[in-house]
Each structure stands twice: as structure tokens, then as C-alpha cells.
């Protein structure tokens, strides 16, 4: 029964899985990949992040995609992806399902501090189609933090704050801060061995 079920589902080819250490890193550069479906505000967030980086001397490249796996044609010219941000819009069920299928095309090394989930439209439950519980369950399953923020035009301050937070994480991930991203990830959670303990993720 279990074998039958395995063969029924389309497998992700090993060549398509994104790996963090496939390519050599470059000095003073960082590449971020934003994964989110149409309408989640990736372009605006990307612009905010690049604007923040103009003076710091870090050459930031932000790539966006609506789904993983990434197309094979660009595999050679694409630089090493240092950080992946999965964007979930709580008013859009499709964004949640694309993120759920996208996390399977990513190597497990990314979930040790080189990826995070961004949840938008978390304020105001009136329009929400996806429950916060489902998102937190997904984040718990992959042991990855999630940040609530805003990416759209109406909230420029929140977008800048979110871009700042992501930029800090990206810099660590790109190797600029002499700290391993795993160490940073450890400080963001409370280590407990009891199942019922509430955990809080802060950045």
C-alpha cells in the first residue's frame, strides 16, 4: 500500500532540488530568492531590500519566482542562492498551497537558518482564507521561523522593517558577519523537550 502511494505521486528529480553549497560564494554579494504566488508583493519587497543595500557595499541580487523547481535553463548562469524567503498571503489560499509544494524542492540544508516564511495580511481576520494555525504548523514542521509583515504599497514602513529584518538574515547567510546562520537560528527559538510548551519565534 505504501509503495503504491509513492509511485502515484510525481517525484521531484534530484537535479531540481535547490542546494546551498553547489556553487562558490562571491565576496560581498548575496542572492535572495523570493518564492510566492502571484499577487503577494514580491517585486515591492525586492525593491525595498535593494534600496536598503545601496549604501552598504553589499551587492544584493533578489530573484523572484512563483513556483519551484526553478527552470533548468538558467542553472549555470544563476548564482548561488544564499537565502530563500517563502511568502504566504493569508487572504490567498493559492499562495499557501504553492509554498507547501515549493518547500519540497528545496534541500534540507536551507532549513538550518537559510530560509524563512513571511506571512502577509496577518492583521485583521476578516479577509483571511488561510488560518494562522496552518502556517505555524508548516513552520514547525520545517523548524523554520516565520515573520509577519506587509509587502504591499499601503504599508511602506512595515515593508521597510520587513526588508531590514530579512537583510540582516541574508547578510549572515552570505557570510558577511562571521556567524553561522545555524547559530542565529538557535537563538530564535526556545529549546524545550516538552511537547505542550508554547514556543515563540522572534527575530
Amino acid at each position: 500500500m505504501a509503495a503504491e502511494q509513492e509511485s502515484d505521486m510525481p517525484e521531484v528529480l534530484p537535479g531540481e532540488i535547490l542546494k546551498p553549497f553547489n556553487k562558490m560564494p562571491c565576496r560581498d554579494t548575496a542572492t535572495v530568492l523570493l518564492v510566492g504566488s502571484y499577487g503577494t508583493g514580491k517585486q515591492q519587497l525586492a525593491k525595498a531590500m535593494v534600496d536598503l543595500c545601496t549604501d552598504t557595499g553589499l551587492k544584493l541580487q533578489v530573484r523572484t519566482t512563483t513556483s519551484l523547481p526553478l527552470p533548468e535553463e538558467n542553472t549555470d548562469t544563476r548564482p548561488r542562492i544564499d537565502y530563500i524567503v517563502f511568502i504566504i498571503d493569508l487572504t490567498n489560499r493559492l499562495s499557501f498551497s504553492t509554498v507547501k509544494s515549493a518547500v519540497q524542492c528545496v534541500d534540507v540544508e536551507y532549513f538550518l537558518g537559510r530560509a524563512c516564511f513571511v506571512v502577509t495580511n496577518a492583521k485583521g481576520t476578516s479577509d483571511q482564507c488561510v488560518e494562522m494555525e496552518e502556517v505555524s504548523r508548516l513552520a514547525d514542521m520545517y523548524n523554520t521561523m516565520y515573520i509577519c509583515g506587509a509587502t504591499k504599497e499601503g504599508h511602506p514602513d512595515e515593508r521597510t522593517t520587513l526588508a531590514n529584518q530579512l537583510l540582516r538574515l541574508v547578510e549572515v547567510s552570505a557570510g558577511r558577519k562571521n556567524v553561522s546562520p545555524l547559530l542565529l537560528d538557535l537563538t530564535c527559538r526556545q529549546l524545550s523537550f516538552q511537547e505542550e510548551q508554547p514556543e515563540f519565534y522572534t527575530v
Partner: protein
Amino acid sequence: MPEDVDTPDHDTSTPGTAVSDTPASERNTYRSTRFGTGVRDTPGGEGGTSLSVSRLNRTLQKGHLQRRYTPYRTPRTRSMVSPATDRTNTQEVDAQPDWSGLVRCSLSVYHVTPLYRYRWDKAGVKQLSGALSLHLAQLATAADANMYKAAVTVKEDTDESFALEITVKRRDTPGRSGSLYAVLCNVEGEVSQTEQGAFSVLPLLLMTGPATLQNAVVSWLEQRFDCRVCPMSFQSSDLLWAMALGLVRGNSGKVKQQTLDLQYDVPLKEAGLDKISLQIPVKLAQALLNSVSEDTENGLQLDELHLFRQALETHVFDYFKIHLDMMKLSLVATPVLFVDKVGRLKILSVDHVHAVLRMMTSFALERSPLTACLKAANESRL
């Protein structure tokens, strides 16, 4: 939390590739028939969307869980059948109160915090009628003073539970044209009605009538019982539960063209298109629901409901290239009931009023954390 680990093994596999050991033949016949406007089982399309979910669930069962505590946990299973009253015992059926006043009128749904100092003996109830009449007279202007006659009665359900019925009639016009009818009740809610000390828990308020009268009654309730009455709005998941209730308990044969009507709100970006309405013959929707769920009678799981919704949405995407997942479900109409996201409810048949009220009571209790705190406080005191 133990509920999570208990998700059954058939979790979210597509109906065609079931893990559980239901006979394959009935699934195949369902899939091979072709429906004109109806729902088609699309294993390919659905396999694409539910791929990750089933993998996710398998890791859930194997890996370790860290549940985060969220204050309002929505239940993962709801039973469509009341254990007490839906037996075919004629004695039980006769004992049900007469809910015919609630049928076929457009009800606004409110949820109410616990009422303080509610006396349910006859004298107390009479006093309430007098108080309400006085309140209405005070609110009315000099010209139409004494226009309304208010009556408050108690409807006994069983020994323990009862409902408060408020009727406000105009003196000049007979019939129900300008009058208000309201029911305040607690139908098999998790928090029982009477055991809460000085408080009574009657979380569900259904009202039909003119808006001014509704506001007047609400203000009177808030004043008299020191409670808060808030209009209830339904999320798309609540609308789905109501739809499932309507499908499971649908009456057959009375009306020829019975359709399940789902209306989605299109997000603002799409200029010119406001709503998308999806109509499915009820028989096909019921067949789809049955194929997705194991046991619709006793309890419908949240995952099964999500599968149903996913099936419909992938079907619409395959045919029309419309992403219904990006839109918000705003209205559900079944032959039994009609629910709106704003909080309007219409029950179309008397037999199912009790079940609908039970579901609405559970929604109302979920939205009122005060009631849960009261229950916890009372239990800790005992």
C-alpha cells in the same frame, strides 16, 4: 496535541488513489461517468495540489510535533448528527420545540456573552416582557408611542435547556410585516446553559425584523443582562461547514432542480468582475462529499472538507482557468439553508432547524472566549 497525530491514515490522498481499504470499484464507476455541468473527479489535477499536503501529513505522523498554543482552536471534526435528538424515536421528536418561526425568513446572527441574573421562572419572564415594552416605549418618539407590544416567552427544549423567544409586534398592523421575532438559545453547546452560577449562557441570538427594532432589542439586552451582543460574521471555513451540513442533511425529491450555490468574492484588482457564482447539482455535490469522507454521519473532518473544496477548485481551474483559491467564499446556498459571510442566515426547512442551530451555537461559542473563561473559572471553583 493529540488530535493532530490522530488524523486518519487516508489523510488527504485523492479519492482515486485511496490508501484506506474501501472497495476500488465504486470509486472507478464514479470517475468514469461523465457529468455535463457537474463535478468531475480529476485525479491528475488534484494530485498536483494535494501532493504536498499528503507528504506533509505523513511527516506529521512520523516526525515530532511542536504545537503552538493558539487561543482559539477551531475544531477539526464536527458532527453533523446530534447524538441526542436525531434518533428515530418518535418520543424524542415530539419533544422538540416548535421552531417554525425561524424558517424561511432572513435571520441576522449575533453572538452573546453570558447573561447575568437571568431568572427563568414565570414571574421573571413576565417581568422581562414588561421591561422590554417599557424600553421600546422610551425609545419611540412621541408620535408613535405605544406602537409596539413586546412579549418574551420561554421555549422548553429539554429539562435542562430552554430558549428565550422575543416577539415585538406592531399594534396597528396584524401579521409579521413590521414585527420582530428573536430567539436567544444555546443548542447543545459545549458550555452548558445553567451551570454557570449567576450567569446563564445563551450564546446564539437570531433575529428577524426591521433594523431599528433589532437595535432596540439589542440595546435592551445589553442593558438588562450586562452582556455584549455582537453581530457574527462567518469565515470561509465556517461557510464550508454550513455547506457540508446542508449537503449531508439535504432533503431529496421535493424540489426538482436542487443546486448548491457557492459565491466567491473577486479581489479588487480584477476590474469589472465582482462575484463569481458556482452552481452544482446537489446530488453530485453529495456524491463528491461521500467519496471524500469516510463517515459523514458521525463526524466530518476538516481535512475532508478541505479535500472537497480543493476538488471543486481544481475542477473550475481545469475548465475555466479561474483560480478560485485566490478568492474568498462569501455565500453558500443549499436546499436546506443559506448562509452569508456577513451573518445572514436563512433556514428553509423545519426538520433541520435543530441541527443548524447546533452548528451556529458552536460557532457562537468559538467567538466568545469570555464564555470559555467563565466555564473554566466555574470548573476550577467546584
